[in-house]
């Protein structure tokens, strides 16, 4: 046990014992952000405010009064969360220069715990996409592209081949957050998850990505995409850390009436040793077309792992899985059409110079502010909401949604505690390959394994499992019952311990190594 603790030196303990100070930690992270700038994970780095927060944290530690486990811990936030005094862009021209007057509830909660906000991370424009390649600030690069593990496996076509050209994507849309956590520039990051946007990049970047149950965490201040499916997501390097962050974020928020009113009690994860009472479901429909043989094998191996440990592993069926993407496509575009209507240039954000009439100003503003993907979804959404189409498409999709949600209810009622599925169809694609297909096609393909959990509002988590043949991370997904995050995370933690996912070996990072840095390399802060 002592050896295990030694392997994951604990930042919080280190801070408490004074082995490292919040300002040192903050400075190290800021320096690392600078030296990993080529990843393009951050849109805005809030250096001054971060250092100030770190100093205040240091004062509290000196007085022996830290606010909690998160006090002094550097974090990053996806750029679709409002942050007071810090630019919030959603990676769109529509909000370039927009400085929010308030903090999203989840951001405020983290700050109240003393967390140090390093900056805002990059994403697909308005969180629409599965690659983090479609924002106005450019694509995010997967840190694993620069890992020894990937470089060893990649065969350069020629000596002169630009090492720059075969970098891989992070997945999306919370790619910046995933890259930030994966490259050690922060200990935890906030993402958002509407169709898999936290779990997908988590899988590609080898980090833990948690999508909480819809209604558990406040969406107040999260710029909405699909009100009935959006949730804030949590990205960390280990499951225990995800539980800690969840503990500080979950709970009713009077400012978000879609948060449930039940009391939420933060929990510590037990160290599960006996899984014999666990029933794991393997949904056969998740053996989706396009699933790589590598991931299929890994999934199978994981199922065996549970079986050999004494758990009951059963094949189950979620018959409407294949319709979840189509259903999502209609509901998402419809809600997007509504949510994007607020961007008219009048009260905030970009405003066109066109001044002839209100409508023409709105039209010009939106013409100038939105990229193709966003405009495409708005137009599709409006089409499905036309009077002549409303019943046929929108209502129909809502009925299919119920079918999908019911599939899960039936399975969980049959005695299954948790579902085990792949998170992505394959490991991360090279950027140049990824952009060959358009955004909608990609999203359709990539969301297939993650989307249904959003449809049903269920909690789900990606746990990094192993490296692919190309030396890139592959993760597996656990889906749990509504509001049973404790069980979900307990099982995920057990699984994480079994698979011992390797640490990324980043040359840029080791170059800056010194005594303090060991705390960044550590998997956990809790």
């Amino acid at each position: 046990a002592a050896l295990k603790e030694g392997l994951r030196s604990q930042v919080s303990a280190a801070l408490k014992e004074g082995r490292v100070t919040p300002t040192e930690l903050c400075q190290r992270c800021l320096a690392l952000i600078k030296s990993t700038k080529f990843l393009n994970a951050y849109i805005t780095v809030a250096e001054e405010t971060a250092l100030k927060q770190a100093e205040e944290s240091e004062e509290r530690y000196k007085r022996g009064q830290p606010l909690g486990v998160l006090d002094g811990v550097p974090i990053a936030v996806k750029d679709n969360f409002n942050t007071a005094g810090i630019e919030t862009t959603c990676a769109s021209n529509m909000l370039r220069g927009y400085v929010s007057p308030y903090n999203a509830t989840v951001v405020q909660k983290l700050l109240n715990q003393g967390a140090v906000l390093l900056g805002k991370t990059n994403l697909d424009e308005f969180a629409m996409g599965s690659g983090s390649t479609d924002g106005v600030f450019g694509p995010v690069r997967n840190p694993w592209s620069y890992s020894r593990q990937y470089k060893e496996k990649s065969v350069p076509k020629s000596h002169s081949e630009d090492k720059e050209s075969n970098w891989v994507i992070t997945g999306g849309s919370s790619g910046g957050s995933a890259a930030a956590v994966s490259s050690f520039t922060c200990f935890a990051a906030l993402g958002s998850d509407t169709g898999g946007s936290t779990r997908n990049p988590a899988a590609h970047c080898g980090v833990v990505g948690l999508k909480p149950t819809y209604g558990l965490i406040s969406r107040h201040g999260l710029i909405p995409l699909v009100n009935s499916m959006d949730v804030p997501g949590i990205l960390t390097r280990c499951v225990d850390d995800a539980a800690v962050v969840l503990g500080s974020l979950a709970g009713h928020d009077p400012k978000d009436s879609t948060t449930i009113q039940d009391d939420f009690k933060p929990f510590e994860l037990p160290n599960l040793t006996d899984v014999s009472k666990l029933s794991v479901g393997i949904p056969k429909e998740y053996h989706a077309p396009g699933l790589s043989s590598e991931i299929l094998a890994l999934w199978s191996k994981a199922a065996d792992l549970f079986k050999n440990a004494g758990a009951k592993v059963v094949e189950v069926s979620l018959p409407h899985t294949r319709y979840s993407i189509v259903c999502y496509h209609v509901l998402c575009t419809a809600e997007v059409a509504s949510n994007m209507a607020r961007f008219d240039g009048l009260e905030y954000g970009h405003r066109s110079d066109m001044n002839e009439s209100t409508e023409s100003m709105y039209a010009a503003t939106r013409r100038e502010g939105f990229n193709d993907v966003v405009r495409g979804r708005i137009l599709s959404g409006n089409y499905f909401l036309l009077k002549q189409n409303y019943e046929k498409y929108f209502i129909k999709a809502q009925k299919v949604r119920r079918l999908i949600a019911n599939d899960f209810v039936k399975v969980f009622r049959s005695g299954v505690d948790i579902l085990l599925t792949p998170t992505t169809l394959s490991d991360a694609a090279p950027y140049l390959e990824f952009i060959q297909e358009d955004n909608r096609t990609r999203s359709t393909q990539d969301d297939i394994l993650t989307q249904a959990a959003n449809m049903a509002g269920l909690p789900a988590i990606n746990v990094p499992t192993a490296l692919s043949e190309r030396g890139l991370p592959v993760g597996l997904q656990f889906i749990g019952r509504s509001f049973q995050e404790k069980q979900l995370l307990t099982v995920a933690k057990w699984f994480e311990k079994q698979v011992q996912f390797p640490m990324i070996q980043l040359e840029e990072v080791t170059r800056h190594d010194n005594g303090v840095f060991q705390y960044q390399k550590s998997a956990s802060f809790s």
Partner: protein
Amino acid sequence: QKVSVEVLDHLEHLALVDFRDSEGVERLQKAIQFADQLHEVNTDGMEPMDSVLEDRCLYLREDDVTEGNCTKELLENAREKVEEYFVAPPGNIPLPKLEERETFLQGS
């Protein structure tokens, strides 16, 4: 069946977003084609689902003023303002008709 120019024009009006080029229109066509798969599913007797939390009551707070007075902060982000007003160009002027608008659809 392709979407008519009338509907495309109508959509541009409703959304106040333009198709930009033939790719934009193609995108919509493909989106509709894709969505048509929904009709394969038998939803007889199914009620539409608005929210996964439909079995619960939404929280309604008391009708008390608890915060506000942030006029200055709210106006800061607007480009055009006069005193405490957001300034909009004249309203009630409809978007020019298809023939008079600078839109890609004109060619169709």
